[in-house]
């Protein structure tokens, strides 16, 4: 399937799932709409629009193939460093789960160390102090100065 057809296909599936979920709610009547009235109407419209988008994308893809597959790779410039994106997301997810058990200062230092060392290829002598400094400085500014709520760790940090 052509690259452009994937997003509407995913949206259409999401729309169908939403219809299925919304059907379980009480629909009510037009005069007295129930909790399911709005969600179902929205889910049906959303799925319908997504299907139209899918059809448009598929038809364009057919034209593309007739043109010798010109439509298959329209985004050659988007190679880029995809691994960095995936690594960042993975690190952030880990961080979210480590934040409460390990506390803000320790987990933040770990996260920033990962960014400096792995993504930015800094030397250890730079990355370690820089990450510790960043973590402590944000703690001081946000927790102590601005009194923002941050997760307390095992040592109160």
């Amino acid at each position, binding site marked *: 399937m052509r690259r452009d057809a*994937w*997003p509407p296909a995913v949206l259409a599936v999401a729309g169908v799932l939403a219809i299925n*979920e919304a059907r379980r709610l009480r629909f009510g009547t037009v005069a007295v709409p*129930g909790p399911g009235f709005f969600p179902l109407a929205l889910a049906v419209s*959303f799925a319908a629009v997504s299907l139209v988008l899918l059809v448009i994308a598929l038809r364009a893809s057919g034209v593309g193939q007739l043109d010798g597959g010109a439509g298959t790779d329209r985004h050659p410039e988007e190679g880029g460093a*995809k691994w*960095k994106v995936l690594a*960042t997301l993975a690190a952030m997810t880990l961080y979210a789960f480590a934040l409460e058990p390990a506390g803000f200062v320790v987990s933040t230092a770990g996260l920033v160390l990962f960014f400096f060392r792995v993504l930015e290829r800094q030397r250890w002598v730079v990355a370690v102090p820089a990450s510790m400094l960043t973590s402590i400085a944000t703690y001081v500014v946000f927790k102590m100065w*601005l009194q*923002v709520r941050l997760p307390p760790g095992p040592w109160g940090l």
Partner: protein
Amino acid sequence: MDIAGGLLYGLGVALAPGNLLACFVGVFVGTLIGVLPGIGPVATMSLLLPVTYAMSPAASVIMMAGIYYGAMYGGSTTSILVNLPGEAASVVTCLDGYQMARQGRAGPALGIAAFGSFLAGTVSVVGIMLLAPPLTKVALSFGPPEIFGLLLLGFTMVTYLSAGSKLRAVAMALAGMLLGTVGLDPITATPRFTFGSLTLADGIGLVPMIMGLFGISEVLLNIEKGIKQDVFLTRVTGLLPTREDWKRSAAPIARGSALGFLLGILPGIGAIIPTFISYALERRVSKHPERFGTGMIEGVAGPESANNAATGGAMIPLLTLGIAPNVVMAVLLGAFLIHGVQPGPLMIRERPEMFWGVVASMYVGNIILLVLNLPLIGLWVQLLRVPYGILFPLILLFCVIGVYSESGNMWDIVVMLVFAVVGYLMKKFGFEAAPLVLAFVLGRMAEESIRQSLLLSRGSFDILLTRPLATTFIALAVAIVVLPAALPGTRAALRMIGRETTE
């Protein structure tokens, strides 16, 4: 209270030391993030929302508003010096601003952007003062059908004026409304789409959604493609525009201010579209349209005035109706609500310090910006030299802090990351986030208002067509959809706006 009395009272509030400090911090932070690419006013305001818990309601809203119009000032600096818009509403400023800088005229370009912004800010504050009080009287007659009509008009505008495919924008708006129904039903409190999760029972948070869609996803795109920083190294001299510059800029500033303010009032417009329309307009009325893009000062003066005036215009629906016309105003609405203040027609009477204080602070803020910006441009240029490798971990960290501190729930960080992935993919595949977020915010209001309308009318949709204001709004919404199809001229005009917006 009459307008003059109101303004004097407001100045008293805005100049109180705490509020003045809040205003200063707001415009300073706003300019800072306006200068830095990759973090915009929406994410910054969401980040600082929890910080305002400890502040007075007036001070917190003054600070939040300051971030918004401060960012409009700051955004132009990077557009002119680096050809990299620090902020989306300054994209068009790159076209002629950067060319001016290359010709050694960075100073006048920055200067006219600052003066134009100041003058436009002044026009919009005067506009708010004159328009808001009478509008609150009209707003008092708003019932659920009128609110529904206005929201419908907003949805139509945000989708029809979006840059890319209209159908995609419709899909995103529907998705946003659907996401808005997650949580407890507003009338019967039945859980919807919660799948037994307590986090989802509270509904999806606006802050994690915005941080993910606008903050983190932008960082992801930037680290993927790698930001090249190429600060224009000529010394910035002679910030004061010459007489000739002023002569050429006066009319564009006036047109940009009027255009920006009036468009800003309309729901769904925001500050970006007015800049494109202003640029197109200046090119149209110019005797030398072919020279646009080669360093015409008109191409900086008009759009930079338009985006600042639009921030003022957008305050009107928020202050008089309690309706957020764009995503930034949705965050500002959040700032009002966490302090227990409901913006709307009653606010001007019941909380005059909020209404007049905020309006007057915008004027004070514009003066601070003018005084602050011209001497500080050197500092902003230095800031642009901070490598992105240092900047992006901080931006990510700030997003996490903003989300966690708002709810104290780590699952909100996960929600933010989910939206970061969604936002990243949306940008890759050419879907816009603004219709989604605005529909998310307004969808709930739309559902409540239509359900209340139907309860009032015992199930008859006639209620939407028999009340003059509601009917007018709905007719306008229909006209936006139907007119382009019926009249080729309007279609061409809309296509022109669309094309200029995407170019």
